[in-house]
C-alpha cells in the first residue's frame, strides 16, 4: 500500500467537491456526449478472477513485457513482467512506494486539467509506472481492460513513462473492453523525456461500441528528445484521445500520427495540442479519418508557438474519407504563433471515395465491394507505412478487414 498517492488523491478529491464537468461550450469537448459522460460512475472496483475470453482473444500477441490493468486495477496474473531486460523497470502504480513516485504523480502540466482529468487523479490509483534507462528492443505492452460490473461503471487508471537521457523504447497501450453494457474508462498517460530520449508510443483503442473511452496523453520533452505518437482510434461509442505535447528543450521533436475509423453511430474525437516552448523544435501531426454509416470524426489539432520558440518547424495534416451521406467530420487546425522565424504549415481535406479509381479497378475485373475495400484500405494503410511492429500491423489490418467482410 502506498502512502505516496494520498496527497495527490486528497487534492483531487477536494477538487471533486466542486467539480464541473466540461460542457458543449468547451471547444475541446464540443462533440462529446455530455449526458452519458455525466452518468459514468467512477469508483473502486473489484479485481476479476480472469479476463473474459473475448478480451483475451483480442489482445495483440506481442512477445515482450506486458502489463494488464483490469477495471483500473493492476492484474499481476495476466501481466508478464518476469525477466525484464536491463534498463527497464515496470511497477504497478499501487505498489510503487518510492519518494520519487510521489513527485511524479503530482506533476503539473502546462495544459489545464479538466473535470475528467481531476476524476482520473481522484480515482486512478491503479496503473503502471514504466522507467526506461536503456535502449530497449522489445515493445512494452500495456493493456487496459474495462469490464463494467453494471451499467455506467467506469474505471480510471494512470500510466507513467519516464524516459532517461538517451534511452529508447516502444510502448503500446491497448484499450479493450467486454460486455454490451454502457461503461467506460478514463486513462491518463504521462510521459517525461530526458535529453535525447526516443519513444514510440502507440495507442490502440478498440472498446465495445456501447462504451466510452477518455484518453489523455501528456508529454514533456527535453532537448533533443524524439517522441513518436501513433493512434489507432477504432472502437467505443465515444472514443476520445487528447494529446498535450510540450516541447520544453531545444531541438526536441514530436511526430504524431493516427487513424480513426468510424462505423455505426460512433464519435471518434482527437484533440491535439503541441506547444513549442523552446528554440528549433520540430513537430508534425498527420491524421487520417474514415467515417462510414452515421459516424462522426473530430480532429482538433493545434500548434502553439510560444514567445522565444524561434526556428519552430511544424506541419499539420488531416485527411478524411467520408463513405456515407450521414457520416460527418469536423476538422479544425489551430495555430497560435508568438515567435519569429517560424514555419508552420497546415492542411485538411474531406473527400469521398474516388469514383474514377473505383471505375479503374472495376475495369480490371475487381468486384465493386472489393474495389471499395481496396481503396479504403489504401487510404487508411498509409498511417501504417512505417509501423515496424508486425504483430500490430497484422492486428490492425485484420481488424479493419473484418468489419467489412
Amino acid at each position, binding site marked *: 500500500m502506498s502512502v505516496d498517492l494520498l496527497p495527490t488523491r486528497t487534492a483531487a478529491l477536494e477538487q471533486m467537491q466542486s467539480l464541473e464537468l466540461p460542457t458543449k461550450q468547451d471547444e475541446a469537448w464540443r462533440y462529446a456526449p455530455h449526458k452519458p459522460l455525466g452518468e459514468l460512475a467512477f469508483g473502486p472496483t473489484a479485481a476479476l478472477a480472469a479476463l473474459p475470453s473475448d478480451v483475451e482473444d483480442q489482445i495483440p500477441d506481442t512477445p515482450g513485457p506486458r502489463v494488464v490493468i483490469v477495471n483500473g486495477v493492476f492484474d499481476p496474473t495476466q501481466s508478464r513482467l518476469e525477466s525484464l531486460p536491463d534498463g527497464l523497470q515496470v511497477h504497478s502504480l499501487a505498489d510503487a512506494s518510492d519518494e520519487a513516485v510521489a513527485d511524479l504523480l503530482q506533476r503539473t502540466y502546462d495544459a489545464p486539467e479538466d473535470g475528467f482529468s481531476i476524476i482520473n487523479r481522484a480515482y486512478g490509483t491503479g496503473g503502471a509506472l514504466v522507467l526506461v534507462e536503456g535502449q530497449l528492443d522489445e515493445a512494452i505492452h500495456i493493456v487496459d481492460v474495462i469490464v463494467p460490473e453494471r451499467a455506467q461503471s467506469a474505471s480510471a487508471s494512470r500510466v507513467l513513462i519516464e524516459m532517461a537521457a538517451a534511452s529508447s523504447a516502444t510502448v503500446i497501450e491497448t484499450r479493450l473492453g467486454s460486455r454490451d453494457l454502457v461503461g467506460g474508462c478514463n486513462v491518463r498517460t504521462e510521459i517525461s523525456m530526458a535529453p535525447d530520449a526516443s519513444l514510440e508510443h502507440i495507442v490502440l483503442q478498440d472498446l465495445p461500441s456501447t462504451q466510452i473511452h477518455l484518453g489523455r496523453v501528456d508529454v514533456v520533452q527535453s532537448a533533443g528528445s524524439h517522441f513518436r505518437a501513433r493512434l489507432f482510434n477504432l472502437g467505443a461509442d465515444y472514443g476520445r484521445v487528447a494529446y498535450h505535447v510540450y516541447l520544453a528543450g531545444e531541438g526536441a521533436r514530436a511526430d504524431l500520427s493516427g487513424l480513426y475509423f468510424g462505423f455505426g453511430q460512433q464519435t471518434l474525437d482527437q484533440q491535439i495540442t503541441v506547444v513549442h516552448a523552446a528554440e528549433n523544435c520540430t513537430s508534425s501531426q498527420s491524421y487520417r479519418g474514415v467515417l462510414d454509416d452515421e459516424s462522426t470524426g473530430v480532429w482538433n489539432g493545434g500548434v502553439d508557438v510560444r514567445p522565444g520558440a524561434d526556428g519552430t518547424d511544424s506541419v499539420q495534416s488531416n485527411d478524411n474519407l467520408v463513405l456515407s451521406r450521414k457520416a460527418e467530420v469536423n476538422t479544425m487546425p489551430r495555430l497560435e504563433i508568438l515567435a519569429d522565424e517560424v514555419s508552420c504549415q497546415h492542411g485538411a481535406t474531406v473527400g469521398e471515395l*474516388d469514383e*474514377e*479509381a473505383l*471505375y*479503374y*479497378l*472495376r*475495369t*480490371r*475485373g*475487381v*468486384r*465493386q465491394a*472489393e*474495389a471499395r475495400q*481496396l*481503396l479504403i*484500405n*489504401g*487510404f*487508411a*494503410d*498509409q498511417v501504417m507505412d512505417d509501423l515496424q511492429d508486425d504483430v500490430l500491423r497484422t492486428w490492425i489490418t485484420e481488424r479493419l478487414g473484418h468489419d467489412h467482410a
Partner: protein
Amino acid sequence: MLHVKNLTASIGDAKILKGLDLEVGAGEVHAIMGPNGSGKSTFAHALAGREGYEIGGTVALDGADLLEMEPEDRAAAGLFMGFQYPVEIPGVNNMYFLRTALNSVRRARGDDEISARDFLTVANEAMELVEMKQGFLNRSVNAGFSGGEKKRNEILQMAVMQPRLAVLDETDSGLDIDALRVVANGVNSLRGPERSMIVITHYQRLLEYIKPDVVHVLVDGRIVESGDHTLALHLEDHGYAGFTNHDLDDALLSGAPT
C-alpha cells in the same frame, strides 16, 4: 469476335456517339483515328462500362452482350481497356492490385486463384515485356509515376490479364520516342490469333510501330471511313478537315498514297 451495331452514347442532351458500327475479327488489330471531340474516348469507355452515359445499340463480344454487364463482368468476359489517363491509387500496392485483378477475373470464370509462385512468374514476364525494374511492382498503383511509366503499367496489366479484346485509348499520348517503342513492342508481342485489339489514337505516329489491319476514321460520333493502314498516312498528310462533313466522296481520297 466483336460486333458493334448502331452504338449511341449521350450525356444529358449532348449526343456523343451517333450510331457507330464496327466489326473486329479474331486476331485483328483495328485503329480508330479521329479529331479531338469526335467520340474516341467515349467509345472506349462505352465498351468498358463507365457510368454516366446513356447508351443505345448493341455490343457483342464472343456472342455475349457487353452493354448488359457491369465493368468487372466485361473484364471477366475478356475485355481490357488501356486508359488514356491511368488513375493514381495511393496506398494500393501495384503487385497486390495486379494479383487481385487477375484472381477476380479467374474466379468470375470459375477458375482457381493463381498461386503466389505462378503469379510471380507471370508478373516477372510482364515486367520484362515493358522493360520495368523490380521495384515497380512495390510502388502504389500509378502514384507518382511518370507519363511513360503509367502507360507501361497499362501494358503490364494487359500482359497479366491476357484479354480477348484490348482497347487501347490514346496509349501513345504523352510518350517520348523511347517509351513509345517500349509500349509498342509490348503491344506487338501480345498480338495473336485469338486476341483482337482496338488502338485509338490521334496521331499516325503510333501506327508506324503497331501495324493495324484496318484503320477507321471517327468523326462526330460515327465511323465515316475505313481502309487499310494507308488511310492513316493520308490523315497524316491531310488532317481530318476533309472528313468533318459527312458526305465524303472518293475524290477526297485521291491524294492518299496506295
